[in-house]
């Protein structure tokens, strides 16, 4: 029908190759508020990339700019080698999944999913086949005649997904699609979306403020804050080696202990409470000098609780509260200097008694060393 819509040939929902998305120097503001500042990002073809950040970090705005629903003040968006910065959404041929599903309430499920195909002037036989296959894909066989309001939230979101996939887009954009669903359903749909994406091969950009969701689904994660990229990397790296305090704190629980750099016999070390010393990670060794202050972060599940001191580093603590979480215990303890310290240990181990004195151990190499957010190194 329209030449500008990337064509959907007669085949449908067959493995397609995702397109590369290049975001270059994008800047955008609403009134006086700058929401995206000189933003650069490349999403590889077929990659599942998640924009993770608190509300107001600019992640949804960035997604809308990629999708053509918002035109950026500056910068460009290049998809599959084509500059699409000024192209309206309808000519980009991307699938967009909205948080509130955005299903057309006056159309049946069948008609909702058929809509993008009808718009493209595809024959009705082909539409029927494609819609059936798309509904199959999201496990909604036989619900085509229902109206959206007759479906549960999870089913509605799957219809919305089927509608975004049915025309074989090379790029699918998802804006907190699972935000309003309960936890179990969310995990189920996370897996479904990820399996579909791997099977079909489209490039996916996913927005969420839920770090677990980001970890579970993504090839790479972009942690955003204040309209800029704070860290870009695979989930494990973002979790284990956050590059700044905001990222470390946002992507998971973390225990923070202050440290000072000291010269020891063989090079710089970090001195923390109770006479423990930690080695300086190699990537920081050049930027730190004696006397600098750092923050040492220890994730709760990296800590081993023992009744006797064994090796170092170790900290003595009093157990205040033990809570049972099925596969783990969360142990709230207090260090000798009065700080809180959270430990997560497998529930296959026995939990310490509340009120008892314990020793906290962890692997020195797993310590996250950060330059404090306020101070200069």
């Amino acid at each position, binding site marked *: 029908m*329209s030449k500008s*819509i990337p064509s959907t040939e007669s085949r449908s929902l067959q493995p397609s190759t995702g397109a590369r998305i290049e975001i270059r120097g994008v800047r955008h503001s609403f009134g006086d508020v700058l929401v995206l500042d000189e933003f650069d990002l490349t999403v590889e073809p077929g990659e599942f990339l998640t924009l993770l950040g608190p509300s107001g970090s600019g992640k949804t705005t960035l997604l809308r700019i990629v*999708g*053509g*629903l918002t035109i950026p003040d500056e910068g460009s968006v290049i998809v599959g080698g084509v500059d699409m910065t000024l192209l*309206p*959404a*309808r*000519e*980009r*041929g*991307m*699938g*967009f999944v*909205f948080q*509130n599903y*955005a299903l*057309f*309430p*006056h*159309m*049946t499920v069948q*008609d909702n999913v*058929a*809509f*993008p195909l*009808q*718009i*493209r002037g595809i024959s*009705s036989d082909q539409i029927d086949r494609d819609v059936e296959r798309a509904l199959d894909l999201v496990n909604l066989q036989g619900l085509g005649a229902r109206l959206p309001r007759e479906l549960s939230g999870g089913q509605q979101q799957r219809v919305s997904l089927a*509608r*975004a996939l049915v*025309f074989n887009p090379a790029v699918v954009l998802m804006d907190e699609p699972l935000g309003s669903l309960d936890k179990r359903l969310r995990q189920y749909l996370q897996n479904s979306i990820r399996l579909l994406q791997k099977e079909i091969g489209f490039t996916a950009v996913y927005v969420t403020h839920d770090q677990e969701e980001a970890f579970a689904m993504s090839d790479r994660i972009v942690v955003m804050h204040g309209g800029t990229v704070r860290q870009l990397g695979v989930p494990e790296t973002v979790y284990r080696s956050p590059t700044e305090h905001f990222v470390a704190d946002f992507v998971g629980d973390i225990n923070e202990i202050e440290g000072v750099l000291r010269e020891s016999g063989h090079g710089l070390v970090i001195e923390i409470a109770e006479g423990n010393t930690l080695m300086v990670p190699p990537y920081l060794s050049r930027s730190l000098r004696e006397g600098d202050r750092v923050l040492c972060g220890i994730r709760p599940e990296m800590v081993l609780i023992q009744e006797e001191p064994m090796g170092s580093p170790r900290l003595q603590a009093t157990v205040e509260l033990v809570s049972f979480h099925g596969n783990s215990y969360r142990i709230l303890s207090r260090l000798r200097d009065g700080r809180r310290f959270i430990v997560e240990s497998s529930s296959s181990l026995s939990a310490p008694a509340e009120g008892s004195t314990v020793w906290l151990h962890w692997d020195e190499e797993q310590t996250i060393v950060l330059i404090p957010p306020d101070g200069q190194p």
Partner: protein
Amino acid sequence: MKKRGWQRRTRRRPHRDSLVGLALLLPCLVVVLLFFAYPLIGVFVRSVSDPAPGISNYVEIFSSRAFRNILRLTVEVSLLTTVGCLVLGFPVAWYITTLEKRRAQLFLVLSTAPLWVAILARLYAWTVILGRRGLINDSLAVMGLVQEPLDLLFNTRAILIGMIHVMLPFMILVLYSSMKGVDESLVESADSLGARPRQTFVRIYLPLISPGLIAGSLLVLIMSMGFFILPAVLGGGGDITIPIYVQTQIRLFKWGIASAMSMILLIVTLALFALLTKVFDPKSVVVGGSRR
């Protein structure tokens, strides 16, 4: 014992709730029965009993060619007013939805401002504007565009102009509220799925606001059908609508004919109501739009 008493009370509650509901409804019910249902029945009874029992009044009305003209004029003017209000009100209402909140409120107040001025004052203002020596004719004459003054007043066109002027604020209010209720992400969604603006408008936007279109049209249509004062002031000698005709019959003490005419107006209005709701049924619009 105590517990039983409590249980009994909760079990009885639905019954008590319906009693409370009835009590709340009662004042309104009394007013409606006393001042609406009773007179309506009275009008009906009179239409088949005055001056003599039977349907002679209806026979007389339907056999008269003049009456058919009156009926046609009434329906035509009302339908044209409705269409006119839709055509003029739609863009205004839509424009207001695109404004930010404070400006939108200002525009809504402005577009409904005519409602604050007494209807007679507004109608006589139109006679000043449209008259043979009125604002328009004088301006045209000064500019040398016309030799003879145009006949703008005291005809069907003048009724239409006045009618649209009076009804437009209602249409704008109803359309605005239904347009404001449209979830913007639905329009964006259609956009992202590849629909051009015209397709989004016809297949998504119109069906979504169709309840407002129906409600606004019905409101304007029904009010127009029964409007007396406006055709009386702006219309010419030949522009007799049903309400005007009823009033003339009453002046002649022909209560039976006047009552029969009122019943006919009521029935025609209800028939148009039914027809419009059927034609513009949201579901039929949808099916027509999305199935081939």
